[in-house]
């Protein structure tokens, strides 16, 4: 398959925590590629490994994490970089927005202070020193009355406004890749959409690629070009977003979509997925979803499912992928 050289290529990535004798695999055998300017959505519940995957790319995981595999970003293996080199990338070509807009800003400093600090740190073209530099950052994320905001403290801003400030700061240097970990979870629905639109604008204006990680399937469905579904540390399905949502191939993806209450439904009925998200420390030898899966066969409980292609760039890890849904 030809095409533009990937911006990011992850091969055989494994992240484990805990003692070496009884490792807890947070991410297992992850493979993914991302093209420049592509928006990739990663969906998963708590414990699915989606945040750990981001941490592995950014190299912000705690020391206790054992990471192996390859994370190639613009041709360089991030896992092999000196921390000094990695620090140069972070915030400039590779940037991140975190979930909690309440704790990601320092309550003791004004917004202007914090934005200017980032500009000084990340941009070399003197924008920080220009009087309008910080205002420009806030205006780009459509913050109302940006001049006034510079003098305000974080507690004077709403959650949505704070998230805008953080996105403005994270994208001040026009990164090649922005990773957003649950960027809209704490926000109201009307604000969520406005934040998602910012990511699309960033791609259009700067050509940045975006990885958005969330448990909100609707955000992924509407924003991303490609979608990855994770379960218990593994990618279970990956494909073009429209295809994954219209024709989900993994029983987990199907069950997840079925369990969502929908406002359009005339008669509201819910199909709950039985059971609980598995404990990563006690994963079965086979497919982690087998215990909750409606179509599981003996083979599913014994062996890890292999990849099968179900369409153009659409792959699924399921022994029953060929079987009728």
């Amino acid at each position: 398959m030809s095409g533009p050289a990937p911006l990011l290529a992850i091969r055989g990535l494994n992240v484990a925590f805990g003692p070496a004798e009884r490792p807890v695999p947070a991410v297992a055998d992850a493979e993914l590629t991302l093209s420049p300017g592509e928006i990739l959505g990663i969906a998963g519940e708590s414990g699915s490994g989606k945040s750990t995957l981001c941490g592995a790319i950014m190299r912000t995981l705690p020391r206790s994490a054992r990471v192996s595999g390859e994370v190639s970003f613009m041709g360089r293996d991030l896992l092999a970089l000196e921390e000094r080199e990695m620090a140069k990338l972070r915030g400039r070509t590779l940037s991140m927005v975190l979930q909690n807009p309440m704790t990601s800003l320092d309550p003791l400093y004004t917004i202007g202070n914090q934005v200017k600090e980032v500009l000084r740190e990340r941009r070399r073209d003197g924008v920080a020193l220009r009087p309008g530099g910080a205002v420009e950052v806030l205006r780009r994320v459509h913050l109302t009355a940006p001049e006034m905001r510079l003098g305000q403290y974080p507690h004077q801003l709403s959650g949505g406004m704070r998230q805008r400030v953080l996105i403005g700061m994270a994208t001040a240097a026009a990164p090649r890749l922005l990773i957003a970990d649950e960027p809209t979870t704490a926000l109201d629905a009307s604000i969520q959409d406005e934040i998602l639109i910012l990511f699309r604008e960033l791609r259009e204006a700067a050509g940045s690629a975006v990885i958005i990680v969330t448990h909100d399937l609707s955000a992924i469905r509407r924003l991303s070009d490609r979608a990855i579904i994770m379960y218990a540390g593994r990618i279970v399905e990956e494909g073009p977003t429209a295809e994954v949502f219209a024709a989900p191939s993994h029983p987990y993806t199907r069950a997840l979509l079925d369990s969502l209450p929908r406002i359009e439904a005339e008669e509201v009925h819910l199909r709950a997925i039985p059971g609980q998200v598995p404990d990563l420390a006690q994963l079965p030898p086979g497919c982690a979803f087998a215990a909750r899966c409606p179509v599981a066969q003996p083979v599913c409980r014994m062996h890890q499912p292999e990849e099968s292609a179900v369409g153009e760039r659409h792959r699924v890890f399921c022994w029953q992928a060929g079987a009728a849904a």
Partner: protein
Amino acid sequence: MSTDAAMPMVEAEGLTKAFLLPAKSLFGKPQTVSAVVDVSFRIPRGRTFGLVGESGSGKSTVAKMLLKLITPTAGELTVEGKRIFSQTPAEELAYRRKVQAVFQDPYGSLSPRMRADRIVTEPLRAHGVPAREAEARAPELLRRVGLPPEAARKYPHEFSGGQRQRLAIARALSVDPQLLVLDEPVSALDVSVRAQVLTLLREMQQRLNLTYLFVGHDLAVVHYLSDTVGVMYFGRLVELGAARLVLRQPAHPYTRRLVALASGDTPLGAVRLQGELPNPLSPPSGCLFRTRCPYADATCAAELPQMRQVGPEHSVACHHYEALAVGDKAETGPMLQDA
């Protein structure tokens, strides 16, 4: 007419809550912030009233008043025909048994030092049931919410989020309440277990004839559980009615936007609701939504629209309901608040 139909379980009439902010200076006039203004609704026994709105809309303040955690500044809240803010101590004790709550955060609302059997029987002990007798009821309470018997000996950290919320529900049900206040009970849960908790809540309601006040921001979730829905904006109800009407044929421009945003089929950016809730210290004149409403005009800035009935089981507070209903109102853009 049966007495049940005549007397709703809950009735709110002109419910208002203003909070006093500390004065800026020693002799300054203290400012007030109206969190809830003139909210009226009724919940028939055995039914669910869903209260939706953005954060800061006052929906949780209404829930807290029903729990008697805060006192209203004006208006009445009656449960089974009795005003809950003029109870004798004995009536209050009985009320606190009759009304129980399940909150959003299943991590913060369970004591990490108590085992599950103590957690679920704590309300019984608080209401004077001897410890041994209370303890004996634990297995049955756990079974009722689908938790295995061995769960009794575990501590909260040993449970998943969904199981913890089951514990919280078991605890609320321990004293055989008639009314449950559910404040965002599934918002913190994983998607795959959210449906389990919602179906459990519905099953409990049917089996025990419970009345629910369900506070939530996810319209699809509210739709699943509610018979009647109230939409709050900036402390006021802007639309009220049967869930199928309010959420499927919304009348207020605010509800229309919320419903469109909640629909998975709406492409990103096709429907926008720009701006955020106005500053509570200087609310706009007239209609509170006019600063974000695409249909606002001079009437909206001049006059506060009152709730009026627009059909059976459906009321709305909007000057332009008629024109909007027939699609005869052009989008003129929001009326921004003039300085």
